């Protein structure tokens, strides 16, 4: 708990963490030449706040019973979570060179059996929240005061089991469950609300019995406040943080690309992207 306070007093540290997470993700993206880079850049601030403000974990013991659980439902965001796990010291930085290659511990879709710190095999979209419900029930059975966090995308809201799980979490009053939704408004076939409209989002979650907050998912101070409010909320309800993020955030020339779900980046552009990140730092 002391470590968390120290981080909180030094808020600019989170900006650095987020920038490092983006840099790790870009370096992994370069290994493959393409990928879910826009999502990783978009969610980096959320992951920085999660891993360097909110979560309890031990880098040298990823299965520590006293850890908070962080489930990656949206399996193709693995590149983003690996970047956070590298920044958190759970995965060695040298391994990012192996991203998506044969026998790597960092496959393109996140799987529990491959990577330390990866709690579940997500990827078949819409399954994380249901597993989180079971874990939250399990932690309560064990009288643990830890939280289950689950990260999902707005596209996953299309999947029916998400709403079975949302209803169940409300029914069981799972106040140890925190769901983070990355609302980047882009899915495989195009803009999310055009594929299947999920708005009004806060109303939906509230109607299912959740304490809902909607924040700018690229505003670190707002995220810190939202994570704190989610953890400290008094009502016996599950908590959701709806994070409006910008695809490819932090690299301006990528932010404007239209086909951002699976981003193609030319070989010479990776160095430019990292340079753009660093420019953002001095700007």
């Amino acid at each position: 708990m002391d470590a968390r306070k120290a981080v909180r007093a030094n808020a600019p540290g989170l900006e650095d963490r987020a920038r490092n997470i983006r840099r790790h993700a870009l370096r992994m993206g370069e290994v493959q030449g393409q990928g879910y880079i826009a999502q990783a850049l978009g969610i980096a601030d959320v992951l920085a706040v999660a891993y360097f403000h909110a979560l309890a974990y031990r880098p040298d013991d990823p299965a520590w019973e006293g850890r908070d659980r962080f489930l990656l439902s949206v399996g193709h965001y693995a590149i983003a979570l690996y970047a956070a796990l590298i920044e958190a010291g759970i995965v060695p930085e040298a391994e990012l060179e192996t991203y998506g290659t044969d026998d790597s511990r960092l496959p393109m879709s996140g799987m529990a059996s491959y990577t330390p710190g990866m709690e579940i095999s997500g990827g078949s979209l819409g399954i994380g929240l249901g597993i989180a419900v079971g874990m939250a029930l399990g932690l309560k059975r064990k009288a643990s005061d830890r939280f289950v966090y689950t990260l999902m995308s707005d596209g996953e809201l299309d999947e029916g089991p998400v709403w079975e799980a949302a209803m169940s979490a409300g029914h069981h009053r799972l106040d140890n469950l925190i769901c983070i939704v990355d609302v980047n408004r882009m899915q495989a076939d195009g803009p999310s609300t055009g594929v299947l409209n999920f708005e009004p989002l806060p109303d939906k979650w509230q109607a299912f019995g959740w304490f809902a907050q909607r924040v700018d998912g690229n505003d670190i101070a707002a995220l810190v406040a939202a994570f704190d409010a989610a953890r400290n909320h008094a009502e016996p309800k599950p908590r959701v943080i709806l994070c409006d993020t910008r695809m490819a955030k932090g690299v301006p020339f990528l932010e404007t690309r239209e086909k951002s779900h699976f981003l193609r980046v030319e070989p010479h552009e990776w160095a430019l992207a990292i340079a753009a990140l660093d420019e953002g730092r001095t700007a």
Partner: protein
Amino acid sequence: MGAGHRRAGRGEDRMSRARRAPWRGVPQQAADPGRPRLTTSAMIASIAGPDQRTRPAPFGHALVELARTRPEVLGLTADLAKYTDLHVFAQAHPDRFYQMGMAEQLLMLAAAGLAHEGFVPFVTTYAAFASRRTFDFVSQGIAEEGLPVKICCALPGLTTGYGPSHQATEDLAIFRGMPDLVIVDPCDALDIEQAVPAIAAHDGPVYMRLLRGQVPLVLDEYDYRFELGRAKLLRDGAEVLIISAGFMTMRALEAAKRLEADRVSAAVLHCPTIKPLDEATILREAGRSGRLVVVAENHSVIGGLGEAVAGTLLRAGVVPPRFRQVALPNAFLDAGALPTLHDRYGISADAMVRSIRGWL
């Protein structure tokens, strides 16, 4: 059907017919009020015969017994505790029972989450819903991670007269394709009671077919004990080898007795673990020369025990003189009373005896 219909392609013909007149003909019974009514097609009709010895809710009682020594054992259901005998567990251990609502996908995922936290969840629903509706959630939430979730499902195969919505005639075909999933199809109350602790002891996911309510008791008359992964020879015979699973083993034993009266000698090999299959025992028994091999199962001819055995035999180069299946047709089955339907589709003891006589 007019000539115009015959000229149409096969698929078109079928569709147009279904649109025009999808209904069945008026049954004789309706036209003749004096005729006795057939027995019920209610959801949970017992498969026990009128004079058969039974035990009540063997699954529920066995789970209560197991939970006494295994504190990590939990029970979850999707609004079907009463209809899967899990209510017995819920009454005995209310603090270890979770009602997940009529949400089978969530049922499997929540069980996965509890298993991640070190528990051994027994989840119940109907076999049709577990297999058809939750396949991906069992595959990716449970099996891919090797989690010890035990999926125990009532109404397997043709054990309800309710029609295709509830008749899980293809559950084995669906689940056999899933890596690392152990599949068990017990025969009677004794088999179920012994299988419950055995599947709990297995450190991985299991799908078990359940008989519920008043469940027949047969295997206590044989020198039998359930062992996960093992087939057991219940009786020997020189002319026919019946390899069977589930309640079809009861039917096989009954058929063997009747064939004996006709001086036809039939062996019965009970094979309650469908996957992994006890290939060594099957090959040994089927390799004994000269016997007609009949695989009997409460399942479609496609993708169940019959095809599993056939593949095992072919791959090993063991080819019996004749190989036959007693199984349900590859079709959506009728609604009706179970005895009627079992006879209609060839899985009653009578129908089985008739079939085997014809094949000899």
